[in-house]
């Protein structure tokens, strides 16, 4: 039984008094201890998906449909209070900008401790002692002193470590990391990813890694879902995806990652246009206008997500021919 089973999740916003579908029937599963990636350009709906899972989307103006089964319980049907009981305890979350995600006027210690107070019923002093250990565990030096400090007194890397400490404080079974390294220096990025990997693997926590960076996914995830314009376009095990991307979009994304093994002077691949000038999925493939491999069949008909190689899935009429994995 999967830990998390997202079924046909859709999110519709009101934008300029018109409905806008940000997430369009997304389904995927996360097994206990598994690391799943959600990959796509900004605006593809990956962050909205994660917020919908957490129940953090503002209730007003958003319509969320489908099912989010966590331990066979549909999170979308829970009352707000029940959801609050699970957030932070069963599911932790890390956000993109560690500075703005920490409250600037509250000491770090309390920000870690309050989640322990909330879910484990610890008293303040006890919670603070535990927080110290947590900060130590995420590699923050001199944690006793840091407990009393404020976010602006910490470096960017340390802030993200602190956020990880908060998210993992109650040893959740699922951790959602939304672009956790995007705002950090490259050197720090690697440290944070390593830390995440250690912690997740060490504790058996399942992970949903949301990123636009395939490099991040490559080192961390067991399964990868590629999203485009609110729909999953390709799902595959990490090896299969990197070895033999089938969807032209995935292919394009991989081509656009700079690689050391490509000879110098060669041009980086570019996907034409941007995700903004898409056409809705109802009139065929939304990626079609940008696609190198577009054919007549791509337009007009709804393209279904079909099972593919080794338990994966693919939404394409004219996929990239399967190469033999190197």
């Amino acid at each position, binding site marked *: 039984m999967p830990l998390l089973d997202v079924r046909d999740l859709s999110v519709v916003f009101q934008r300029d008094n018109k409905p806008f579908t940000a997430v369009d029937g997304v389904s995927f599963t996360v097994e206990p201890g598994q690391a799943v990636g959600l990959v796509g350009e900004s605006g593809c709906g990956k962050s909205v998906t994660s917020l919908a899972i*957490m129940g*953090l989307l503002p209730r007003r103006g958003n319509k969320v449909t489908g099912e989010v089964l966590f331990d066979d319980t549909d999170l979308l049907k829970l009352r707000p209070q029940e*959801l*609050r*009981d*699970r*957030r*932070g*305890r069963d599911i*932790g*979350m890390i*956000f993109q*900008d560690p500075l*703005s*995600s*920490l*409250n*600037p*006027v*509250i*000491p770090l210690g309390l920000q870690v401790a*309050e*989640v322990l107070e*909330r*879910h484990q019923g610890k008293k303040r002093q006890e919670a603070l002692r535990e927080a110290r250990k947590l900060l130590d565990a995420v590699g923050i030096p001199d944690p006793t002193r840091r407990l009393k400090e*404020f976010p*602006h*007194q910490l470096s960017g890397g340390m802030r993200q470590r602190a*956020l990880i400490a*908060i*998210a993992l404080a109650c040893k959740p079974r699922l951790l959602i990391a939304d672009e956790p390294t995007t705002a950090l220096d490259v050197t720090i990025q690697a440290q944070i990813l390593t830390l995440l990997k250690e912690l997740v693997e060490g504790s058996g926590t399942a992970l949903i890694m949301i990123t636009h960076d395939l490099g991040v996914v490559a080192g961390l995830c067991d399964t990868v879902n590629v999203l485009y314009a609110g729909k999953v376009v390709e799902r595959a095990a990490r090896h299969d995806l990197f070895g033999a991307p089938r969807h032209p979009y995935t292919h394009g994304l991989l081509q656009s990652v700079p690689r050391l093994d490509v000879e110098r002077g060669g041009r980086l691949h570019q996907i034409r246009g941007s995700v903004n000038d898409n056409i809705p999925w109802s009139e065929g493939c939304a990626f079609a206008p940008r696609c190198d491999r577009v054919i007549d069949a791509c337009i007009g008909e709804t393209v279904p997500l079909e099972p593919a190689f080794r338990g994966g899935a693919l939404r394409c009429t004219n996929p990239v021919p399967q190469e033999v994995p190197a």
Partner: protein
Amino acid sequence: MLRVVSRRLIQLFITLLALMTLIFFWLRSLPGGPVDALLGERATPETRARLIKALGYDEPIWVQYGHFLKNVVTGNFGNSIRTGEPVMDVISRSFPATVELAVAAIIIAIGLGVPLGYLAARHRGRALDNATIILTLVGISIPIFFLGYLLKDWLTQSVHLFPPSGRISTGMDNTDVTGLFVLDGLLTREFDASADALWHLVLPALTLATIPLAIIIRITRASVLDVLDADYIRTAEAKGLRNPTVRKRHVLRNAMLPVVTIIGLQTGALLAGAVLTEKVYNWGGLGTLITDSISGSRDYPVLQALILLAAVVFIVVNLLVDLSYAIIDPRVRVR
């Protein structure tokens, strides 16, 4: 810190000296003034000449300026033309009255403004929010002396709910300790006097609170909306914190930062409002003193001192706001 304070003090000193000099020469160049005010209607030309001599107005202006400076440095601002008392006495008597009024107004403005602003933000776009916004817009568009006038007419004349004017009932015979009558009553256990003073305070404080209230509601609302959008609120929600914890610990505390600044900025506006409110309610504070020392009497000694006082208050309030900022916002402390 010490350096900041000493720099402020030097700044204060220079500002005061410049102001004094400016005021002195300006006032001396005006017609009428002390001589007219002291003489009334019946003076003969001889009396006038005598007065000019007595006041030393026949001396060269530089000599007069010297006397003036010497007096001011020794803390002597002269005597009020209107009442003949030392200016410092007049001011120190009026000061607590205005402080009492202003503090009451600020308490009302914060006590009502922050919750209302918060509620409006939580109910953004709904009836409560719209009603609040319209109320604040009307609040800043209504001439407050007229509002005071109407309140007074309705609640003290048509219905005798409140006393029409003054700070305490005539003949109350209360003991004066700090000059803040409500507080004095508590200190001396003259609770009836305290209650009476409080009852006199209601309408003037409400009137004076209108504009700060409107502004605090608006700022709180905007600030809460900003904070509700902030990433750290999302983090707090992701922690599964209970609603009250999120509101108190995370939303309100951050939302209060701009509100504190606004309260500081309102001191000037409060004084302007006090001038009007105090006139409406015959409230013997600095506001009345300002109008009285200009209108009709041209009581220049008092006026000079008041202008200097305003400068001092401004700089001190500035300092206090800075310090309070340092307490609320940890980001400021390091600087």
